[in-house]
């Protein structure tokens, strides 16, 4: 057993154990930290597979962006140190049963299926190759999805600002007046 194999199993254990803790712990802040370690474990697996660019993107976007955003939202919406209420035993039991049955079904299907590997020579997933194909406009290029995703990100950004914006006091008063007028009309 080589060192690389041991590292792979360590990364897999880190990912799965901290993922499991993230969904079972009752302290919400700890759940966010376990999620962080799970995402770092996945980035490590990408490094192990020698997809360095994807690993870097994973760390920058997930660990540096999404987890920080989640931690901020926990601070904004939760009393620090509060434990989540205990869930019903039946719900936990049936969720675990459903998840386990799903996993067993998927793994059964996977082991019965034999995958066919291509024989073409491998190309290196280097940043230069990825960049050339991503912005290419020929048959294999991904320029159109790239532009669509840029529009999506812009829309998401504007949407976030609009949704999270505090409504002004006069607007709230107008709304209340509208409601009371409606009620009067209804009566």
């Amino acid at each position: 057993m080589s060192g690389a194999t041991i590292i792979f199993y360590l990364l897999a254990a880190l990912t799965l154990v901290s993922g499991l803790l993230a969904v079972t712990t009752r302290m919400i802040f700890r759940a966010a930290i376990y999620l962080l370690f799970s995402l770092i474990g996945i980035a490590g697996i990408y490094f192990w597979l020698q997809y360095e660019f994807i690993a870097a993107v994973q760390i920058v976007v997930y660990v540096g962006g999404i987890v920080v955003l989640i931690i901020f939202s926990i601070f904004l919406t939760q009393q620090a140190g509060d434990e989540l209420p205990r869930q019903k035993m039946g719900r936990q039991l049936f969720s675990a049963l459903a998840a386990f049955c799903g996993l067993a079904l998927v793994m059964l299907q996977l082991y019965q299926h034999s995958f066919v590997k291509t024989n073409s020579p491998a190309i290196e997933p280097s940043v230069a190759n990825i960049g050339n194909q991503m912005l290419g406009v020929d048959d294999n290029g991904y320029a159109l999805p790239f532009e669509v995703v840029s529009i999506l990100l812009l829309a998401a950004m504007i949407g976030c600002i609009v949704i999270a914006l505090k409504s002004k006091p006069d607007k709230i008063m107008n709304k209340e007046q509208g409601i009371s007028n409606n009620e009067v009309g209804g009566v």
Partner: protein
Amino acid sequence: MTEPGLYHFLFISAALFFIGVYGFFTRRNLVTMLMSVELILNSVNLNFIAFNKYLWPDRLDGVFFTIFIIAIAAAEAAVAIAIIINLYRSHQSIDVENAEELKF
């Protein structure tokens, strides 16, 4: 313990997916449900990368799908957190049981 191959990655990916599904079923807090969704999306990414590495190393499509999924997941998380904060402002709680005006 054997040398890692495609099936090892598929097992990690499937296990992570169903861990996320379990969390999504049991949690009633919107932020923790969002965390479960992130786990599910990550398992999908791992699947794409493993297939790209072991079955089609002559192409880069799995890499592109992964990059786009990461971008869309970031947008989704941002919008979800904006909605959660707005919900907290109007209900003083982010428990899904307390936000049931849209039920039925």
